[in-house]
């Protein structure tokens, strides 16, 4: 649905700064693709390129086989920018109605009312945006992105300033859009959030894709940390793909829950004594990609 092909973007005159380097990425319908990376990795620039707000120096960007700006003219995209100064004197309800009206459809009040309710903004509808807390302003920004139940969502640090309850609600809203077949591009510093929301996470470093990881899904394939009391030397014969991460700690790869159980059983047969088994979190999965940089 969203396709970036060997996209690069340079700022300033040569040599300048190459904020995005040779990035190829495709986000399918019904997929949430996370973008992670340190500050200045090029995440926001990549999202701006994906929507055609910036033009690539090299490469090509398409949304449903159209140039992004052409697509935007035809269909609204849900976009939450990392930094936006919403008009502070406007009231919340007016902002949402104005942005709903910008699509040129008649059911402005219905659509605005629906997202106001979804983001718990009914009581703030008459308040000026400048009077709202950071978290409420972020909820307004998310609400406007959900106005048209878009098929494409591009979210840049959407959980910034949100409390845990509204992080959960946002996650639920994303899951709903994903189930409806939307393609979601989600950039965040918050690896925990990406782990819970994204189907896969692209790690960006200095503008280039460093690696791509698939967060653990319960019962699905993935990597686990096994802490052992005895029999660590037999793990390799039971699991095959084993990496020692401490004296009694190992990382193993399995196909699914049944595979994990079978391999554990085989290892226990060989005299292994298990202390604990835990799926690896996204933070642990991405660490190898950045090891050696320190």
């Amino acid at each position, binding site marked *: 649905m969203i396709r970036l092909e060997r996209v690069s973007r340079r700022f300033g005159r040569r040599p300048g700064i190459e904020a995005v380097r040779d990035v190829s990425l495709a986000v399918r319908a019904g997929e949430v693709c996370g973008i992670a990376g340190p500050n200045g990795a090029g995440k926001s620039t990549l999202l701006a390129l994906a*929507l055609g707000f910036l*033009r690539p120096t090299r490469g090509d960007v398409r949304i449903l086989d159209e140039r992004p700006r052409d697509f935007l003219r035809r269909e609204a995209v*849900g*976009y939450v920018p990392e930094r936006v100064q919403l*008009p502070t004197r406007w009231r919340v309800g*007016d902002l949402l109605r104005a942005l709903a009206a*910008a699509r040129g459809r008649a059911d402005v009040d219905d659509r605005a009312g629906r997202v106001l309710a979804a983001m718990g903004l009914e009581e703030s509808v008459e308040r000026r945006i400048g009077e709202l807390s950071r978290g409420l302003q972020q909820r307004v920004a998310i609400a*406007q992105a959900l106005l048209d139940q878009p098929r494409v969502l591009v979210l840049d640090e959407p959980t910034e300033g949100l409390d845990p309850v509204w992080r959960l609600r946002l996650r639920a809203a994303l899951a709903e859009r994903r189930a409806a077949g939307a393609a979601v591009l989600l950039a965040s510093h918050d690896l925990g959030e990406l782990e819970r929301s994204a189907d896969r996470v692209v790690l960006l470093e200095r503008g280039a894709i460093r690696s791509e990881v698939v967060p653990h899904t319960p019962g699905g394939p993935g990597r686990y940390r096994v802490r052992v009391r005895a029999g660590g030397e037999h793990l390799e014969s039971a699991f095959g793909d084993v990496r020692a991460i401490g004296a009694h700690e190992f990382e193993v790869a399995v196909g699914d829950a049944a595979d994990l159980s079978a391999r554990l059983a085989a290892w226990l047969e060989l005299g292994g004594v298990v202390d604990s088994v835990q799926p690896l979190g996204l933070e642990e999965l991405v660490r190898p990609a950045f090891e050696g940089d320190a």
Partner: protein
Amino acid sequence: MWIWLRLELQRLLPRMLGLLAFGGIFMAAAATARLFAASDGHVEFDRLMGIGGYPLVSALLLSGWLVGRFPLVAALVLAAGVFSGDRESGFARLIAARARAPLLLFALRAALALLLAAALSALVLPAFDMLMLGRLPGPQLFALVTGYVLVFGALTVLLSTLTRGDAWIALFAGIAAVVWHALLRAGALRGGAPGPRGLLTALLPPQGALAQLETAFAADEAVPGFALLYCATYAALALVIAGVVAARREL
């Protein structure tokens, strides 16, 4: 689109109030002069001279000249940041992601800014004339207001699509145009290359045409149609270029 018009009016309201307060200073000056030096329904300069001598007369003449720049000031103030403000705040991206025709919204806002500048000028200038001269100005005043608002409003809108500080640059261009026009009229640029000279004359605000509109107003002569047309053409070209730039530029 009504909601956009209403919100834009709301956004521009503090600027409009500021402009009215600015105009109010001249009204106060004119009303005071009327109070102390009225004769036959208008301000009598001989009486002013008797009260405050040359400094008072000069101050009032300067006020008259300054209030004559009101359309220019109103156009700059109301059109300032019409595109660059949203681009700087990031709101332009939200509009681009949502609006079917972002350019139409931008055009709507620019048109409203120009219309309001003209409306405020059409309120302040006749009021000043009424107080000072005891009569309403003729149609020349409206041609003058239209010329100034179109030229400087459109120039500010164009600059807003290109850079920040649009109104300041437009003001600088206006001052440069006055100097350039004076040099041209004085024949001080006869030695220069005609190409660059002509290009700069065409790019700068059409001070010659504006001066013709001012002369017609001051001398109560017929509106110089060609000068007004020249201003309208300059503005139309600036707005077309602004539209092309706004549609194509990065956000």
